[in-house]
């Protein structure tokens, strides 16, 4: 599905990714974890072609992403902070994205799922953070793409929406899709993910299942396992 070789990225003097290699197979939920500034978002943005790597190769579904844009038809991306043009209405934004990406009928179901009907005629600038995130989720899931990338999907969501999101993610997984998630909420990661990828200082520190991580670090639970990696490396 996704294959990354020797990825390097430097922002002026700040080396964010240094020789990262990653293979992600087809199907399943992968959580990308790491401390703040470990390069999670940069990695995702490289995948999407929003950040141009200094060195390295990325291919998505067997196609090199460099200088290409068509492969993004196969990716649904949920950005970290939902920054939408504030003078647009929710309805207009959805229509616009459909116009740009191709038509879909999945949006109605998603609007019902997240109870967004009453907000359709409101301007995006007047919405609360959580509602914006729901709009963001609708925009992401309304295209039936084989690869879904979610950057901090839980931000601002209330408990009931969180449950709905988890159901939605499981449903998408059941369709055989590959889902990439970054999150700092460890309980959420533990609940949904099949495999975790741990980034540290611009490289992959660990890749495997949660049980493997627990046995590697000799910790009884996931949260402490992550914490022990961090204290070992930053103490």
């Amino acid at each position: 599905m996704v294959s990354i070789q020797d990825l390097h990225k430097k922002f002026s003097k700040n080396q964010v990714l240094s020789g990262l290699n990653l293979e992600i197979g087809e199907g399943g939920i992968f959580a990308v974890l790491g401390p703040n500034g470990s390069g999670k978002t940069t990695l995702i943005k490289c995948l999407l072609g929003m950040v141009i790597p200094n060195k390295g190769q990325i291919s998505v579904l067997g196609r090199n992403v460099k200088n290409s844009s068509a492969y993004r038809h196969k990716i649904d991306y949920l950005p970290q902070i939902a920054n939408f043009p504030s003078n647009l209405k929710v309805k207009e934004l959805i229509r616009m994205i459909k116009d740009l990406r191709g038509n879909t009928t999945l949006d109605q179901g998603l609007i019902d799922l997240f109870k967004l009907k009453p907000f359709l005629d409101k301007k995006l600038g007047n919405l609360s953070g959580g509602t914006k995130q729901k709009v963001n989720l609708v925009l992401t899931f309304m295209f039936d793409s084989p690869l879904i990338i979610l950057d901090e999907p839980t931000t601002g969501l209330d408990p009931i929406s969180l449950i709905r999101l988890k159901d939605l993610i499981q449903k998408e997984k059941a369709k055989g899709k590959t889902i990439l998630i970054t999150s700092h909420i460890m309980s959420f990661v533990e609940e949904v993910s099949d495999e975790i990828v741990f980034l540290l200082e611009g490289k992959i520190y660990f890749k495997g299942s949660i049980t493997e991580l627990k046995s590697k670090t000799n910790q009884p639970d996931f949260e402490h396992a992550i914490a022990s990696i961090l204290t070992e490396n930053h103490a």
Partner: protein
Amino acid sequence: MLKILKYSFYDLMRSRWSYVYFAFYLLLGVVLLFLNNDLSKAVITLMNVIIVLVPLIGTIFGVMYYYNSKEFTELLLAQPLKRSSIFLGQYLGVAISLSMSLILGLGIPFIFYGLFKSTAIWDFSLLLITGTFLTFIFTALAFNIALSNENKIKGFGYAILLWLFLAIIYDGIFLMSLIMFEDYPLDKLSLIGTMLNPIDLSRTLILLKLDISALLGYTGAIFKQFFGTNFGLIVSICMLTVWVVLPVFRIIFKAKKKDF
């Protein structure tokens, strides 16, 4: 690209500023016609206003639009769209809507005044064409500045500085150098000097067409002597086109390499 252009254009058409800009030109056109009672004199006055004001509005609007639509741009970048079409679409959206405000705002009062029956129609059309060129040039320059500067304040600062330089300081330096080197042959230098500044170039272009030798000045006179009126018009229009094309290429080039 056309879809992005469409959305940027609609977005701007809904903003208040396009109307303010349009209303300003409408008012300017009406006032000039009533005060002057003479079309060709009104055209000259308009030229002086357009040549300074259009670049200013183009730069400020271009920079402002780029920074304000940053979020929208980031949303678009994650979609299956080419970078060049995103940025070109936005650039054309701004440039076209500004040009429309200019053309409609000035055109309407002049049409009512009886432009079509007047001989000044070509002078007036050339004025609008030059105004459109200047809008496209300075919006492109503004996008270049904004793409190269993450910091809004810096971007605005450079944009204002660019306008100030090309509209005022450049002429000052140019004049000083002509005075300082008056013992040497200066025709080539002043020709090149005029070509390198789109504002001077536009002024020369319009004055050549109006054929008012008293207003042409030294460089204009040389321009006329060197190229003749008609060839001079063609050369200056070609140079204005180059002034549009080069910054647009740099927009595409810069946009391809930028991280978001």
